[in-house]
C-alpha cells in the first residue's frame, strides 16, 4: 500500500474525544417531514453533497464509539449543548449561550460548582421537543455501568442535574471542573432510548450498546438519518425545521472509500465532493487537479518523541535536552513531509491561542553545538568510534515506533544521523501498533523503551494531567515518560480546578515552560490535514477539533449554476 500519513489506527486515536465531546455541530429543531426525498433519484443530484470517509463508523452512537469516523458521521444528526467552531472557540449549539463565570452561567460553590444551560426550542426528528430532561438522561447514560461508554471522564464529576423547567438544565458538579464545556457533546432522546438503557441483554450489558437506534438514530441536528448501506454509504436528508437555519442543501451522503487512489479517482470524476484527510503522497497530484480547492489545515495531532525517564541515561535532563537540540525539525518537515507538517514545540496546539506559550519555541530550537556541550557536561566523552561513552558504557539508545509507516521510518533514519553527529548511537526497533500502545504489554505502558516516536492529539481544552502528573504513571494513567515534577503536579491539578480563563492560561503557559526545560518529551511536527473540496461547494470550513469538518454542515451550499 502507498504511504498514508493518517493511518486508520491513528484516526482511532482521536477517537472519542467524543467523551470530552463536542460532537455535534448542528443542533436541531425538527418535526415536519421534509418534502425532499433526497437527490438520490437519477439526475436530481443537484443539491446533494457527497463527503468521503476512509473508514466506516462502527456505530452511530457517539457514547460507545471508539472511532473518529463516527464523529463525522453523527455530527449532521446530533445536537451538542456547546460546540467548537473552526477558530477553536466555544459556540452555543443547543444551549442559548456558552455558560461562563462572567455571564453567571457558572457559579462556584465552595468545593463544587454549578453550571446552568438555557436550551433553545428544538425538536427531535420525530417531532417530540428536546427538553432539559433529555440532557439529564444523557448524563444518566454515561453514569450507567452497563453502558460501554468510551470515557466517563467529567460525567463522573457530576453530583446531580436539576431540571426546573423544560428549557433549563442546572448541572451540579461535586468539584470544580474546568473542562466542563467539553461535556454533553451529543444529547440522547430519553423517550427513545430509556427502555433500551434499562434492559440488560446479559447481566451488566445494557441493550443500549446494541440498540437499533445506534444504526438508525433519531437526533435533533440539521439533518435526519435516512439510510445506511453497510460498507457503502450513509445518507442524511435536510431537517427543514432546523432552528439555526434550514440547511441549504437537501442531502448529505457519507461515502465510505477505504482506498486513497479510489477516493482520488472519485473526486476527479465528481462522484465525491469532499475528500477528507487526503494522503500526503497525493499532494502534488491533487494540486494539478482542476475544479477543486485544497484546504491545508493544521491538525491537533502532533508527532513527538517520548523519553523514558525510568532509563538512568535518560533520567539526566542534559541528555534529553541534548537529543532535542540535535534534531532539526524543519529539515524533517521539508524532506519527509513536503513541508506540510510544521515544527512543533509544545503539547498545546499553536492554534489554541489562549493557552499556547510561544516562548517555548526559542527554548527548544535546533542547536547541535549546544547539544554537544550539554553531553560533555553530563560526562559523556567522545570515543574513537565517534560515539560517546561514560564509565565504559556507550551512549546507545533505542527508538521504538509503529512499523510499516514510511514517514516515521524515514524520520528515524534522519534522527539516527542527527544523533550520530553529536555522538549518540541510535538503534531503531519498530513494532506493530498494538505492541507499542497495548496494555498491559505494550512497550510504552510497560516502560520497555528508551525513545518512543508517535503522535498525540491535543484538544481545545488544555487539560494535560494524564500526560504529566506523577500520579498518572502506568498502570494508573498514561504518563508514559514517567515524568515527575512537583510543580507540574500542582499546576496540572490546579488547571482542572481553575474556571477563569485568564488564570487558567497562566497555569498552562507555565507548564509549557517547565516542560521545555525538563524535556520529558520532544514535540516534533504538527500534522497538516488536507481536505480537498469540489469548487462548487461553498461554506466548507475545516475544523481541527473533535467537532470535525461537518460542524457547520447546515451552512454548506452549492454554487448556483453548478
Amino acid at each position, binding site marked *: 500500500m502507498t504511504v498514508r500519513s493518517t493511518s486508520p489506527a491513528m484516526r482511532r486515536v482521536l477517537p472519542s474525544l467524543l467523551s470530552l465531546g463536542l460532537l455535534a455541530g448542528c443542533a436541531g429543531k425538527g418535526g415536519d417531514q421534509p418534502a425532499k426525498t433526497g437527490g438520490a433519484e437519477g439526475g436530481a443530484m443537484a443539491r446533494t453533497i457527497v463527503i468521503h470517509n476512509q473508514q466506516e463508523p462502527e456505530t452511530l452512537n457517539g457514547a460507545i464509539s471508539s472511532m473518529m469516523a463516527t464523529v463525522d458521521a453523527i455530527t449532521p444528526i446530533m445536537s451538542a449543548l456547546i460546540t467548537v467552531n473552526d477558530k477553536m472557540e466555544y459556540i452555543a449549539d443547543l444551549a442559548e449561550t456558552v455558560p461562563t463565570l462572567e455571564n453567571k452561567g457558572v457559579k462556584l460553590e465552595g468545593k463544587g460548582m454549578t453550571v446552568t444551560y438555557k436550551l433553545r426550542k428544538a425538536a427531535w426528528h420525530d417531532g417530540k421537543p428536546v427538553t432539559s430532561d433529555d440532557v439529564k438522561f444523557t448524563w444518566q447514560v454515561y453514569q450507567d455501568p452497563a453502558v460501554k461508554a468510551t470515557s466517563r471522564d467529567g460525567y463522573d464529576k457530576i453530583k446531580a442535574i436539576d431540571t426546573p423547567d423544560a428549557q433549563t438544565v442546572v448541572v451540579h458538579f461535586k468539584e470544580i471542573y474546568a473542562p466542563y464545556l467539553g461535556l454533553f457533546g451529543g444529547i440522547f432522546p430519553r423517550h427513545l432510548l430509556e427502555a433500551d438503557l434499562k434492559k440488560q441483554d446479559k447481566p451488566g450489558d445494557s441493550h443500549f450498546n446494541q440498540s437499533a437506534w445506534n444504526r438508525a438514530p433519531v437526533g435533533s441536528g440539521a439533518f435526519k438519518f435516512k439510510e445506511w448501506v453497510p460498507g457503502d454509504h450513509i445518507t442524511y436528508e435536510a431537517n427543514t425545521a432546523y432552528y439555526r437555519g434550514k440547511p441549504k442543501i437537501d442531502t448529505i451522503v457519507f461515502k465510505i472509500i477505504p482506498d486513497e*487512489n*479510489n477516493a482520488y479517482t472519485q473526486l476527479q470524476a465528481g462522484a465525491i465532493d469532499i475528500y477528507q484527510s487526503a494522503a500526503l503522497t497525493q499532494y502534488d497530484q491533487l494540486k494539478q487537479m482542476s475544479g477543486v480547492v485544497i484546504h491545508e489545515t493544521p491538525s491537533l495531532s502532533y508527532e513527538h518523541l517520548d523519553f523514558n525517564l525510568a532509563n538512568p541515561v535518560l533520567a539526566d535532563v542534559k541528555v534529553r535536552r541534548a537529543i532535542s537540540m540535535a534534531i532539526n525539525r524543519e529539515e524533517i518537515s521539508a524532506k519527509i513531509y513536503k513541508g506540510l507538517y510544521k515544527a512543533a514545540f509544545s503539547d498545546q496546539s499553536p492554534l489554541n491561542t489562549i493557552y499556547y506559550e510561544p516562548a517555548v519555541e526559542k527554548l527548544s530550537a535546533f542547536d547541535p553545538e549546544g547539544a554537544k556541550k550539554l553531553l560533555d557536561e553530563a560526562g559523556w566523552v567522545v570515543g574513537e568510534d565517534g560515539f560517546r561513552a561514560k564509565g565504559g558504557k556507550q551512549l546507545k539508545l533505542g527508538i521504538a515506533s509503529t512499523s510499516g509507516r514510511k514517514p516515521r521510518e524515514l524520520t528515524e533514519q534522519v534522527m539516527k544521523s542527527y544523533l550520530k553527529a553529536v555522538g549518540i548511537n541510535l538503534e531503531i526497533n519498530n513494532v506493530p501498533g498494538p505492541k507499542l500502545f497495548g*496494555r498491559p504489554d505494550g512497550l510504552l505502558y510497560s516502560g520497555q523503551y528508551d525513545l518512543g516516536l508517535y503522535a498525540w492529539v491535543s484538544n481545545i481544552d488544555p487539560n494535560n494531567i494524564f500526560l504529566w502528573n506523577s500520579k498518572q504513571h502506568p498502570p494508573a494513567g498514561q504518563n508514559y515518560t514517567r515524568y515527575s515534577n512537583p510543580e507540574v503536579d500542582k499546576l496540572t491539578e490546579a488547571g482542572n480546578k481553575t474556571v477563569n480563563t485568564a488564570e487558567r492560561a497562566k497555569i498552562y503557559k507555565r507548564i509549557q515552560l517547565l516542560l521545555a526545560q525538563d524535556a520529558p518529551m520532544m514535540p516534533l511536527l504538527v500534522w497538516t490535514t488536507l481536505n480537498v473540496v469540489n469548487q462548487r461547494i461553498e461554506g466548507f470550513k475545516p475544523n481541527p477539533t473533535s467537532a470535525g469538518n461537518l460542524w457547520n454542515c447546515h451552512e454548506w451550499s452549492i454554487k448556483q449554476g453548478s
Partner: protein
Amino acid sequence: MGAYILRRLLTSLPLLLGVTLLLFCIMHLMPGGPLAAYTQNPRVRPEDLEKIKHIMGLDQPLYMQYLYWLRSLLTGNLGNSLFTGQAVTEMIASFLPNTLVLMGTSFIVSLAIGVFLGVMSAVKQYTAFDFGVTTFAFIGYSLPVFWFGVMLLLLFAAQLKWLPSGGVHDLGETGLLDLIEHLVLPVTMLSIVSVASWSRYMRSSMLEVIRQEYVRTARAKGLDEFRVIGRHAFRNALVPVVTIIALALPGIFGGAIMTETIFAWPGIGRLFFDSLGRSDYPVIMAILTISAALVVVSNILADIAYAALDPRIRYD
C-alpha cells in the same frame, strides 16, 4: 453414495471443532486485542477500560470465552459484534450478497475463459495461439494484483472515464446495467490470476488426455474432431482440474480484501479486514469458521464430482 456423504460430513465435525479451537487460540495470540482501539486515547481512563472489558466479556478466562462462543455457535446466532453491537449473522448477511455477486461473476468468467484457453492451447499445441496464451498466463500470474487493480482504476476510471471507479452502484441507481458497469474492473482484477493459472492446469491436463488410447480410438471410429475433444477428451481432462476449482469455491464466500478495498466494494473481505483491525473476535471467528466449513464441503463436492465425471470412481 448417500451413506458416503453422510459419513464424510459426520467425520468432519470433530475436525471443524478442532479448527475453531485452533483459530480461537491463534486469534488471541494477535497483539493488541479489542481494547487496543481505546488505549491510545488518553481520555479513556483505566477505570473506563475495565468497564468496557467487562461488558465485552473479555475479563472472563479464555476457555470460558471459547465455551460461550461455542454455545452461541450451536444456537446458530454466532454472537454479537463487540463494536457494532449487531448480530454477526446480520452483519454477514448484509455484506454477503455483494461478495457473492463479485466473486461469483469473477469465478464464472475466469472459469469459462481459463478452461477455454487451456483446451484450445492444448489442442493447438506449439502454435502461435498456444504461445500467446502461455505468454499471457505467465504475465497474468506474475502481475502484482494490487498494482494491477490500481492501474485499472487509474486508466479506465480516472483517465478514460469509461467505467465507474467504485462501489456496487452509483448513488440512487439499482439497475442491472449499472451493476455490470461497476463489476467490470474488479472482476478483471480478480480474474486475471485465476484465468492464468486455470488455463495452465487445463492445458496440461488436456495434453495428457489427448495422447490416451481412448482418444485415438474415438478418432479411429471416425468421430469428428469436435466430438473427440468435447466429449471424450475434455470430460476426462476435467477430473484433476475439478480439485483445483473446488478448492477455489470457499473463496467465493471469503471475498477479496484487496479488490474490495481498491474498488470500494462493500463485501465480506472488507468486513473481515475491518474486524481484524479492531480484533472484533465474534466476527472474525464467524467468518473463519464458515470458511473452514466451506472448505470441507467443497472437498466433498469435489469427490462427488469425480464420480460423476469418471465412472471408474465409486464410493461405498
